[in-house]
């Protein structure tokens, strides 16, 4: 009994010690997830400005001509996507010969670079091997991205586009679409119009249609490039691998195909009024999708099976959206009196549609169909029509009376001419 008070006191002391020591240990432990205790004043600084990512791209090592052209492809890609400021190579102070494929941080930091891309072309004859590296100075002098490509010299542009896609994935989390292509129609002479395909940056322009008659309203799809061909009695739909065969035909006009979900959606006047129809990709199983006395044209496949189209059912041409079976028709443009040529952003989370609107002249707009926020892409810059989003929705292409196909970012900035010459009804994939 005499020891009881002593034991109680000892127990109380141990308990008190535990209460002090345990929390103290958690405070002193440098846990990355647990903030250190605040000392003194804390001021929150937010609302930073945004700036372009400064990146340096010296010419590729190895073959001088190929190294220069390869680097130029990269510089062009990263400049047009409106996320990068490609530094002038004349400002570089680094000893490129001594560095080789590696980098030293200080000379690149001195010119303001946040990233550096280096590459080397090895091999001879027609077979080359290209090693590419990306350095992010914020992460040190070890390459954060390394790729090697093998193939013919003619594939160098493709290698550079692929590497640029990977650079975007590394830095932003989403790959780029620099290896994509555009299709469009172009008047080739009196009574003649052809469908063309080109790299998105304007290289490798080639004709798709057979060079006869009027070919227009192209679209990507299984079997090649789908387009409409004018005849003396109407129009039919074919594609580039059909050797001129009429895939979808009927009375009147059959035009403007867009392919998604294994079906082709197109405009037809076979029933006496312009309506939207769908068919299997072999032209069978034709179904009427819209049933309205107004004019319904220009179907455009979108994310989630949505179909955008133009209709005059509310008095003036406006853009509507419906399901793949024609259900749930709802209007999505409520500003302007003449809106047409809808084109979806393929990323479903964006809810973006680009279209041609008439406000003075023809200009390019985008609308968020969920929030009804409109953005004007062009104004006072000639006549601009037929927009198309890039597959990653980072760029919008459109035909402009300023001399060809232009590319801009989704806010309308950084507009650049990429394909010279008249063009219409663009698609981009």
């Amino acid at each position, binding site marked *: 009994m005499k020891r009881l008070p002593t034991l109680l006191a000892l127990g109380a002391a141990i308990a008190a010690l535990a209460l002090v020591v345990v929390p103290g240990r958690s405070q002193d432990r440098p846990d*990355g997830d647990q*903030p*250190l205790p*605040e*000392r*003194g*004043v*804390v*001021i*929150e*600084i*937010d*609302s*930073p*400005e*945004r*700036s*372009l*990512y*400064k990146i340096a791209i010296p010419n590729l090592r190895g073959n001088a001509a190929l190294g220069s052209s390869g680097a130029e492809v990269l510089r062009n890609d990263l400049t047009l996507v*409106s*996320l*990068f400021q490609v530094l002038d190579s004349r400002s570089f102070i680094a000893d490129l010969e001594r560095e080789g494929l590696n980098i030293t941080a200080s000379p690149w930091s001195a010119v303001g670079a*946040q990233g550096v891309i280096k590459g080397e072309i090895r091999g001879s004859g027609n077979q080359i091997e290209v090693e590419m590296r990306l350095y*992010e*100075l*914020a*992460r040190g002098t070890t390459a954060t991205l390394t790729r090697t490509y093998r193939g013919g010299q003619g594939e160098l542009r493709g290698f550079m586009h692929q590497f640029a896609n990977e650079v975007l994935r590394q*830095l*932003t*989390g*989403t790959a780029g679409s620099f290896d994509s292509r555009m299709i469009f129609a172009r008047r080739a002479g009196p009574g003649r119009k052809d469908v063309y395909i080109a790299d998105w940056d304007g290289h490798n322009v080639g004709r798709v249609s057979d060079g006869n008659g009027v070919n227009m309203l192209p679209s990507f799809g299984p079997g090649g490039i789908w387009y409409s061909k004018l005849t003396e009695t109407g129009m039919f739909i074919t594609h580039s691998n059909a050797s001129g065969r009429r895939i979808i035909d009927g009375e009147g006009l059959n035009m403007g195909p867009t392919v998604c979900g294994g079906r082709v959606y197109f405009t037809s006047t076979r029933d006496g009024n312009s309506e939207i129809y769908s068919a299997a990709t072999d032209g069978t199983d034709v179904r009427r999708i819209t049933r309205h006395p107004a004019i319904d044209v220009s179907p455009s496949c979108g994310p989630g099976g949505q179909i955008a189209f133009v209709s005059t059912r509310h008095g003036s041409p406006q853009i509507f959206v419906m399901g793949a079976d024609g259900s749930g028709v709802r209007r999505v443009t*409520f*500003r*302007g*009196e003449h809106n047409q040529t809808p084109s979806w952003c393929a990323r479903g989370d964006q809810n973006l549609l680009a279209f041609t*609107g008439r*406000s003075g002249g023809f*200009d390019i*707009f985008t609308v968020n169909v969920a929030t009804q926020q*409109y*953005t*004007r*892409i*062009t*104004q*006072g810059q000639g006549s601009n029509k037929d927009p198309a989003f890039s597959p990653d929705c980072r760029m919008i292409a459109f035909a402009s009376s300023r001399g060809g196909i232009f590319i801009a*970012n989704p*806010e*309308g*900035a950084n507009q650049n001419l990429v394909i010279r010459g008249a063009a219409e009804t663009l698609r981009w994939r």
Partner: protein
Amino acid sequence: MYRQPTRMHVEPKDWTPPSALHAAWLTGAAIVGGLGFSGIFALVIGGIAIGYAFFGDVLASVATEDDAPPVVEEREIIAARFVKLGRDFQQELPNRRVPVQDTAPPDTTAISQNPRERREMPDAGPRPPNPMDDPMTRLLNRADLFAEIAEQREQEGSPDGIEEGTETTASAGDVYAGQLYVFFRRGWTVPETIARDQLRDLNVDVTITVGEDLQIQSFRTRGESANADFDQSVIAQIERLRAQGVTIPEPPLLVRPDYVGTPFTLRFRGRHASQP
């Protein structure tokens, strides 16, 4: 003749206060009176009860219209749906938003290197009286002056506040903290390659030590965000300010010990980044 007072004899019972527990025997009259009163009281209460039971039914049978319970008619209740207040319907397509071009030279110095310098401007002297002013003009001018004063008096916040402020009253510490917010934020940029939804959740702490000369002596980052480019943008911002030798705004005496010679923390957060 004086008489010797006699000794008073007091019994204990004389000091005992009267108590009901020590009641004396009741007299006959008291008993009769008590019984009589009880009987009368019982008769009165009983009579009231019997009377209410009888006459209450009679009164209820001749109730007036005001006393009749209301007749509830069953009817269908239709929930009303109200139209919400909407915004003005915009008919026209919008104009293009052109990014503001910053044509001013880069702001390499946040504040004066010598904040204590003051330039004394020469006094222009009193304004000469204009003999053409008529009383009505003077009255209108005076009214404008009062209107301007009233307008100033109605403004919220503090003339020493910042545009980004949200509070209308401030202590010296809050006002100065706002000035430091502007000082350290100016010129801070993050690269476009950081997606907006990621940028919103990025933050990094920097502990700053400022010397008596109000220049940044040292700084240290505490932890890191999930994006190295974001961290680098913060480091670059602090390094730029330190390399330029700029001085922080003069702190009020009351809060000076919190900022001069004592480390304080800046928490850089990527939220509310500017639109491109």
